[in-house]
C-alpha cells in the first residue's frame, strides 16, 4: 500500500465524488462554522432559491466579528453603539430562527471567537473537514482536521448541500527540529516560518507542521501555528493528532463520550502521515534558532527577530512604500520604538495559555503612561477561566482594559480600533494597511512581547521579563 500523508487521508475520507480533469471533487464537510459577517448573503441565496439548511446538526453558529466587547453593550442593556453591527447581529438571529439553526448568541456563556469555541466545545476533532467563512479556519487543523476558509458563496453551498467543489491542493511539509527557547512562543515560530517561506509560500498547498518542536507544543500553541497558515498563503495547515490532542479533547461537551470516545481515538490514531509518505515540497527549520519576532511592515512576511533592525532593500519601491506607511526607516533597530496601543486577543492568541503568558509580564507591573492596553479573551469560557485564575485581576491592576470576548481590534469591525499613525503591538495575525483602523500601524508579536511593550511603553524583548 502506498504511504499516505495526513492530508491525503483526510481528503480521501471526504470525497463524495472524486475529481476528474473536467470537474472538481465533491468534498463532504463535517463541520460548518458560521458567523454574522460572512453568512447573511448566503442565507439570502437559500431564501431566494427556496432551499433549506441540509444539516443543522453539522452547523455551529455564533457571532464574534462585529460584536461589542463592552460589557454594558452585551449584558447591561446599553444599545450596541454601531448600528450596522447591531443590524448584522439581529439578521443572524433572524436567519437562525428561519432556518432552524441553534445559535450561540450574544449573551450565551459558550460564545466567543468561532475558532476558539470550536475546539473549546470539542466540536473540532481529528479527521474532520471543517470550513467557515473566515480565512483563519486553518486554526482547526491543529487537531489533525482538514480545515480551511471559504467565501460567502461557498457558505451557501455548504448550508444547502453540506459539500464543496474543490481541487486537491499540493502538500508542503514544514519540519521543525529542536525546541523553542525560553521566552520564545509559538507565535514567534509561526512568524519565523512566514518570514522564511513568504506570504505566498504556501499558496496552492495544504501545510503539515511536523517534527519534534511541533510535537512538543500544547494544543493552544499548535492552534496559534495553524491559525497563521493563511498568512503564508495556505488555506489549510495541520498537525498530526497525538496524545496531546486526545488529552485536550477528552470530556469536552461535543467530543465523543464513553465507548464512542475509545472508537474515535482508535480511528484518530490511524490519521498521522505514514512513514515514507511523500510531500510535494518540504521546508526545514530549527526551533532552537528562533528568537522573539516582531513585524515591521504591512504583511506578516515583513518580520524580523526583535533584536534586529528594519532591513534595507534599496530600489524596492513596494518595500519603501510599506516602510513609509509604518513610519520606519531601513536600518533602524526594532526595539525601543514607543508604542501607543497594545492589543492582546484574536483567534491567534487569546486562549488561556496566551493570557497566562501575558500575565507573567503584567504581574506586579503597570501599563506605561500614555499606552492603551486592551486584553480581549477569545471566548466567554476563557474569560471566566482567566477570572477564576486571577489573571483578569492582574490585567486590571496593571491598568489594562479587560473586555468581553470577540475579534475586536484584530480587524476593528466593532469599533475597537487604533487611531491613524499610532503604533499597536498586537497578538493578532495581520499587519495589513488599515487592518486595525485607517492609518493604524500594527506590529505583530507574541503575547509576552505585547505585554512587555505595554509595561515599558516601547518595543522590548520579552526575555527581559521571562527567563
Amino acid at each position, binding site marked *: 500500500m502506498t504511504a499516505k500523508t495526513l492530508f491525503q487521508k483526510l481528503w480521501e475520507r471526504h470525497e463524495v465524488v472524486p475529481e476528474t480533469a473536467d470537474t472538481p471533487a465533491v468534498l*463532504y464537510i463535517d463541520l460548518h462554522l458560521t458567523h454574522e459577517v460572512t453568512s447573511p448573503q448566503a442565507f439570502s441565496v437559500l431564501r431566494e432559491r427556496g432551499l433549506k439548511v441540509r444539516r443543522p446538526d453539522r452547523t455551529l453558529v455564533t457571532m464574534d466579528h462585529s460584536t461589542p466587547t463592552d460589557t454594558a453593550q452585551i449584558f447591561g442593556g446599553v444599545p450596541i453603539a454601531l448600528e450596522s453591527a447591531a443590524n448584522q447581529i439581529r439578521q443572524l438571529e433572524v436567519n437562525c430562527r428561519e432556518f432552524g439553526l441553534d445559535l450561540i448568541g450574544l449573551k450565551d456563556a459558550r460564545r466567543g471567537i468561532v475558532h476558539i469555541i470550536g475546539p473549546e466545545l470539542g466540536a473540532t476533532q481529528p479527521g474532520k473537514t471543517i470550513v467557515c467563512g473566515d480565512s483563519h479556519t486553518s486554526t482547526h487543523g491543529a487537531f489533525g482536521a482538514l480545515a480551511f476558509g471559504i467565501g460567502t458563496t461557498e457558505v451557501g453551498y455548504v448550508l444547502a*448541500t453540506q459539500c464543496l467543489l474543490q481541487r486537491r491542493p499540493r502538500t508542503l511539509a514544514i519540519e521543525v527540529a529542536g525546541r523553542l527557547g525560553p521566552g520564545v512562543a509559538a507565535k514567534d515560530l509561526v512568524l519565523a516560518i512566514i518570514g522564511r517561506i513568504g506570504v505566498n509560500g504556501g499558496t496552492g498547498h495544504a501545510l503539515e507542521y511536523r517534527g519534534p518542536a511541533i510535537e512538543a507544543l500544547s494544543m493552544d500553541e499548535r492552534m496559534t501555528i495553524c491559525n497563521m497558515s493563511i498568512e503564508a*498563503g495556505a488555506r489549510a495547515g495541520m498537525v498530526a493528532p497525538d496524545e496531546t490532542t486526545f488529552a485536550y479533547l477528552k470530556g469536552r461537551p461535543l467530543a465523543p463520550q464513553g465507548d464512542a470516545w475509545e472508537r474515535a481515538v482508535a480511528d484518530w490514531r490511524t490519521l498521522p502521515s505514514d512513514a515514507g509518505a511523500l510531500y510535494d515540497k518540504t521546508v526545514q527549520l530549527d526551533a532552537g534558532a528562533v528568537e522573539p519576532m516582531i513585524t515591521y511592515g504591512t504583511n506578516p512576511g515583513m518580520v524580523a527577530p526583535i533584536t534586529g533592525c528594519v532591513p534595507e532593500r534599496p530600489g524596492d519601491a513596494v518595500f519603501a512604500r510599506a516602510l513609509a506607511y509604518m513610519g520606519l526607516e531601513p536600518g533602524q533597530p526594532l526595539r525601543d520604538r514607543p508604542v501607543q496601543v497594545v492589543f492582546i486577543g484574536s483567534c491567534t492568541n487569546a486562549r488561556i495559555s496566551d493570557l497566562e503568558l501575558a500575565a507573567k509580564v503584567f504581574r506586579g507591573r503597570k501599563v506605561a503612561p500614555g499606552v492603551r492596553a486592551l486584553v480581549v479573551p477569545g471566548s466567554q469560557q476563557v474569560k471566566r477561566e482567566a477570572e477564576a485564575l486571577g489573571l483578569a485581576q492582574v490585567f486590571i491592576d496593571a491598568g489594562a482594559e479587560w473586555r468581553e470576548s470577540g475579534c475586536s481590534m484584530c480587524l476593528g469591525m466593532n469599533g475597537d480600533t487604533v487611531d491613524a499613525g499610532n503604533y499597536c503591538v498586537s497578538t493578532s495575525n495581520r499587519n495589513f494597511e488599515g487592518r486595525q483602523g485607517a492609518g493604524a500601524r500594527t506590529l505583530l508579536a507574541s503575547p509576552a512581547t505585547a505585554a512587555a511593550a505595554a509595561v515599558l511603553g516601547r518595543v522590548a524583548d520579552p526575555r527581559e521579563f521571562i527567563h
Partner: protein
Amino acid sequence: MDPIKVIRSRTVVMPSTNIDTDQIIPARFLTTTTREGLGAALFADLRNGADGKPRADFVLNRAESHGCTILVAGRNIGCGSSREHAPWALLDYGFRAVVSTEIADIFRSNSLKNGLLPVVVDEATHEWLLAHPGAEIEIDLGECSLRLPDGRVVDFPIEAFARYCLLNGVDELGYLLNQSDAIEAYEARRT
C-alpha cells in the same frame, strides 16, 4: 450570472505586490447584510484621504481609469481575509477581470464564483502590462488567451469546471444540488 466570453478594455495598473483584501475593502464596510453597492468602498483608504476627499495620486481617481474593466495588479493580489466582499466590491465598481502573476487562493475562488475573471500570466507578460498602464487588451475566456495591443497572444490557465460555468453563466450550486444522491449515499456510508 451572465456568461463571460470576451473582456476587452484598457487596463488599470496597481503594481504593488500583496494587495490584500483589507486594502480592497476595509473591514469597517463588512457590517452590511447585502452584496450591493460595495463599489463605493473599493480601495476606500487608498482612494480617499483622511479628510474623505479623493486622493489625486491614486490610480482609480485619474480620468484615464474611468470605464476600465481590467485590473492589472502586482504579485499575490487578494491575499489575506476570505471576505467575498472583495470581488463584490471590484465587480460593483466595474471591474471584470484581475490580471497578475499570482492570485491568492480564496480570493481567486471567490472571484470565479461571481464572474470576476482571475487571469494568471507569465512574468514577461506581467512586466509588459505593468509597464504599459492603459494598454487596450483582450481576454478571451473561450480561448483562455490574452491579446496584447501588438497582437501577441498569451495563454492563461483556468480550472476547467469554473471556466465552463463562467462561459455558460451557470452557477455551481445547481451542480452540487444535483449530486444529492451521491451525498446521501456518502452520508449513509459514513454513519
